């Protein structure tokens, strides 16, 4: 058998495997967020997650993929597998944003934004970083190393979220008379299930981003990538647990899981570049950043029910810069300044564009549900379906 054929077959299979793991992140995000919000908003959050997967993937299929990569051609694996892998990423970016505006966002304007994000905004970022590179040759051309998207996915989602929170404001009753009211998670098993589905999905996310497993070097790179990904998650969980215990003598699982996710985001930019011990440091810093960022955003009155800003935006930035710190390799064009430039250019595009798009949609159909609707719950008002409706045994 020709080596090219072998490689084509194996990489198609491997990419389908990686894609499948990423799709587990769809129920992953859905369960995580369904567990974190109040029962009266659970169905709405689940519906958002489902609709995002549906419309953003479709928009990416019909418009975005061409915009990002210019062409569907692929000689190293089945073009359909290559597409599916890229498609699996899209929803994530929007999930990051939708999660952070839960419990007040209305579904139709959010769905419209998901279409625009999946068709245009996200593909543009992919274009300039991983794809056809339309900025090539301009002063904004970026050279950042970002294997699986600390910036391209996580910060992109995070900047869009920041814009969304600025436009939609906080949940009714969250900040009253200068006080922050804690609104606890309603279902911890779902939170844990969701977090682990994300964690497992990350193996495909980062491992698949190596692009090929069809040589000894690539097989090593894939395995190292997955190992380092996992290690950073472990470190993020452990450090968050330690910090919680020191401060409160209690192990707050919601923070531990956010710490793990923070570590996973942080390592995502360069898991294939580090030796096996560096991710411990990167993940631990990632987890620590989450622990400090969550209350900080609250003090800034940026109401984010699931901690997405801390997990995805802060660590998306940290992870991208970490490559410049721990794996700088000027010979191959990896420098701290290059990484920083990447972060800034993406911010410079995503934040204003998202803000304007959100602002315009908001003029048409308000994003924020009325106070009364928030009190009654988004489920009844947006979906007509309560998550746990049963008046026990009444029927």
């Amino acid at each position, binding site marked *: 058998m020709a080596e090219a054929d072998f490689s084509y077959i194996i990489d198609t299979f491997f990419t389908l495997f990686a894609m499948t793991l990423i799709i587990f992140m769809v129920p992953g995000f859905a369960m995580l967020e369904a567990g974190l919000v109040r029962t009266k908003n659970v169905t709405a959050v689940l519906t958002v997650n489902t609709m995002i997967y549906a419309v953003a993937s479709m928009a990416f299929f019909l418009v975005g993929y061409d915009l990002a990569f210019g062409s569907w051609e692929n000689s190293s694996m089945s073009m359909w597998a290559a597409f599916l892998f890229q498609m699996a990423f899209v929803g994530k970016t929007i999930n990051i944003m939708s999660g952070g505006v839960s419990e007040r966002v209305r579904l139709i304007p959010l769905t419209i934004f998901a279409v625009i994000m999946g068709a245009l905004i996200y593909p543009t970022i992919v274009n300039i970083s991983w794809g056809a590179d339309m900025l090539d040759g301009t002063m904004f051309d970026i050279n950042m190393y970002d294997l699986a998207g600390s910036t391209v996915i996580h910060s992109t989602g995070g900047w869009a979220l920041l814009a969304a929170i600025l436009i939609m404001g906080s949940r009714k009753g969250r900040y009253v008379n200068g006080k922050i009211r804690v609104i606890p998670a309603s279902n911890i098993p779902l939170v844990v299930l969701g977090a682990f589905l994300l964690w497992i999905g990350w193996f495909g996310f980062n491992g698949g981003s190596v692009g090929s497993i069809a040589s000894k070097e690539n097989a090593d790179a894939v395995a190292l990538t997955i190992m380092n990904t996992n290690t950073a998650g472990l470190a993020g969980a452990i450090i968050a647990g330690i910090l919680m215990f020191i401060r409160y003598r209690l192990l707050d699982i919601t923070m531990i899981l956010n710490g793990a996710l923070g570590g996973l985001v942080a390592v995502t930019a360069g898991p294939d570049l580090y030796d096996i011990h560096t991710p411990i440091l990167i993940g631990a810093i990632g987890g620590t950043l989450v622990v400090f960022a969550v209350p900080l955003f609250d003090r800034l009155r940026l109401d984010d029910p699931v901690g997405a800003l801390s997990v995805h935006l802060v660590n998306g930035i940290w992870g991208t810069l970490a490559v410049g710190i721990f794996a700088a390799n000027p010979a191959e064009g990896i420098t701290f300044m290059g990484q920083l430039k990447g972060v800034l250019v993406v911010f410079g595009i995503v934040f204003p564009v998202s803000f304007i798009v959100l602002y315009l949609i908001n003029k048409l159909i308000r994003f924020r549900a009325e106070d009364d609707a928030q*009190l009654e719950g988004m489920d*009844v008002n947006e979906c*007509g*379906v*309560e998550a746990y409706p049963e*008046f026990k045994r009444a029927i």
Partner: protein
Amino acid sequence: MKRIEAVIKPFRLEDVKDALADIGITGMTVSEVKGYGRQKGHSELYRGAEYVVDFLPKLKMEMIVDDDQVDQVIETVVAAARTGKIGDGKIFISDIEKIVRIRTGETDSEAI
């Protein structure tokens, strides 16, 4: 001693509790209930079939107080629970003959 029961909108709980605590009420017992009344329910869906939900979520607060506190408690609850919209709920007052504190065996006013 009197029993004051207030059926209120759930999200008013914290405010009512705080207002009651401010006037010196030290004990209350709360339960989740569903209310049927003038506030009309809403339609819900299930696989494309619509149905009307006319029992709405409410909370019932129960405070046993001395007779001379009754009026003040009523006023406090009304003030703190009112949103002015239909469905704000009701207060019911009835008589309690005897109270016992399980821990100490104290009775009546001492047991409140």
